[in-house]
């Protein structure tokens, strides 16, 4: 199951709000500094259907939430940084389990991309780390084709 191009943009905006650029001296890069769309494409191509259905449902809820939560007639990605963060914080602190799990789900997805990139691991001096970025983070010419039956 894929996401429509606008849904992908929504997802990118949620993840970049959770993992912003320029928020820490030691970690100046955020999720937006990585090829996040390629990561999302890879995830969508490989994750189980049930997970993707849940992800999509949460994405719609968060995207449409500004109207209900903040009284703003906008979609999530149309909000400013502050308001986006405010909205996700309200979700995170909610007493309703499913609501507070939503930012966690997006954070988990974003951190899989962010925390696994050797550039980020190098900033944190994590060893050992991979010499090459993961497949999704390589340019098309660097990427090995996915051959059925290959080892890994």
């Amino acid at each position, binding site marked *: 199951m894929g996401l429509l191009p606008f849904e992908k943009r929504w997802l990118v905006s949620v993840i970049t709000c*959770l993992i912003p650029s320029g928020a820490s001296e030691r970690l100046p890069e955020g999720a937006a500094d990585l090829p996040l769309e390629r*990561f999302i494409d890879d995830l969508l191509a490989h994750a189980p259907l*049930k997970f993707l259905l849940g992800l999509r449902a949460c994405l719609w809820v968060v995207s449409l939430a500004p109207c209900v939560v903040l009284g703003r007639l906008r979609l999530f990605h149309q909000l400013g940084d502050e308001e986006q963060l405010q909205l996700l914080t309200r979700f995170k602190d909610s007493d309703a389990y499913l609501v507070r799990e939503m930012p*966690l789900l997006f*954070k988990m997805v974003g951190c899989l991309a962010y925390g696994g990139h050797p550039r980020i*691991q190098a900033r944190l001096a994590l060893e050992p780390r991979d010499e090459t970025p993961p497949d999704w983070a390589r340019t098309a010419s660097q990427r090995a084709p996915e051959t*059925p039956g290959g080892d*890994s």
Partner: protein
Amino acid sequence: MSVADLDAPASPAGMFGLRDVAERALVEDSADVIVIGSGAAGATSARVLSAAGLEVIVLEEGSVLSAPRSDMYTSFKHHWRDMGLQAAEGRAFTPLLQGRVVGGTTVMNGAIIHRLPEPIYDGWAAEHAVNRSFSYAELERVFDALDRELMVGPAPDAVFGENNRLMQLGVERIGATGNRIQRSVSGCRGSAHCNQGCPTRRKQSMDVSFIPRALEAGARLYYQCRAERVRAKRSRAEAVEGRFVDPVTRARGPRFRFHARRAIVVCASAIQTPGLLAASGVGRRSRLLGERLQAHPGTGVVGVFDAPVKMSFGATQGYESKHFWHERMKFEAVGMPLEFAAARLPGIGPALMQELASFDHLAIWGVQIRAEAQGQVRRGLFGGTSVHYDLTDADVERLKLGVSRLIQMMFAAGAREVLPGVHGLPERISSPDQAAPLAALPSDPRRFHCIAAHLFGTAKLGLSPHSSVVDLQGQVHDSPGLYVMDSSIFPTNLGVNPQHSISALAWLLSERLAERKAP
């Protein structure tokens, strides 16, 4: 086609994957015994049966881990079931972590070794008659052999690491006892990468220990090879059918049919085994197939220390406390990869970035409980399996107590702050008394983030076909020639990490199988 027709396979010697058979219409082969699954149970069974001179074929749905990478996403995608996104549903979602790779979950586990606790064996003997099949002394003989073969020993000083050392300090300072973890590793480099697959292949997971030994003794292993059902002839299990499928690209290869002259041994894990038996139309008489799923759900607490902890160095899991085992809880240090730890941190946005920037200063320790809850494994709506599992109130009370003990240990070890990860407590606390409200919180599993990695009981063994799925030799009551030897057959959970017990039972039952006369 039989394996003899395969010319110069590109896979490791004795192993055949999709690319080796892609051009064939049907793959056929035969052996004395077919083992389904190559994890703790399957690899051990293959190791024992092939050493006993039987011709063995092992089937594994996953691929071969050839070049481990450090990033969790790649590991999830290639080597974990459902990319690590499988979860049980109850009031809360509980991720169920399992490997899907040659070597099974042992490839990404913490290499922690424990023997089946004697009180658990006694309970199994009293209530499930296991003493009529094997004594504790027989188990000990096998544990000794396993210890030798899997090079079991404590995490050495040089790679103990600060996360483990601090936990030792915390445990001792609250007046509890603990110990260095016995691990199945030879020459650990302390890379704290056990969950991604050991980069230096020091961990004695099944892919580097029992699988190669079984292959040396003549076994063959088909990977990317998914068993779908067991076929019977004159009511005796005699063949396994399925299809070669690339688990990552989902590309479908040929179908296969493998014939077993003597027995078929299912070791597909407590989640997959019941589905395989159900699809084969066997094991349902007692109505217990897929029922009684038990686990050791666990959760972690993060401590922030002034001095660097560097969780990324050291034995991934090197220290534990069983001091409160009689209260059904066990504590372990957990050197988590950045990606796991990040998702566990409370912050979002700039706060998360600050937390990540101080990753060096974080320690993570976990509590796992011997839960009373029993769940069910069923066929899922979208194919695959659907798992229902919900902690009981008593289980949640244990979790609360366990987390409060972890918080005490963290502060006792000198943590500046603790991030308890419990909804209803502050995200960060700077003294143990700030955790006091924990005791009064409702017994609701949704307040915690638990995972379950130890799974048992969905095809329980026992004497009677009315109250168990397999007999005391692991043979499915209504299917002669079909055996189950993984943790599905365990009557209960254990309260300790199960790999060694799973291997020990598979070893013993495989010895028995090898001694049985051919039909």
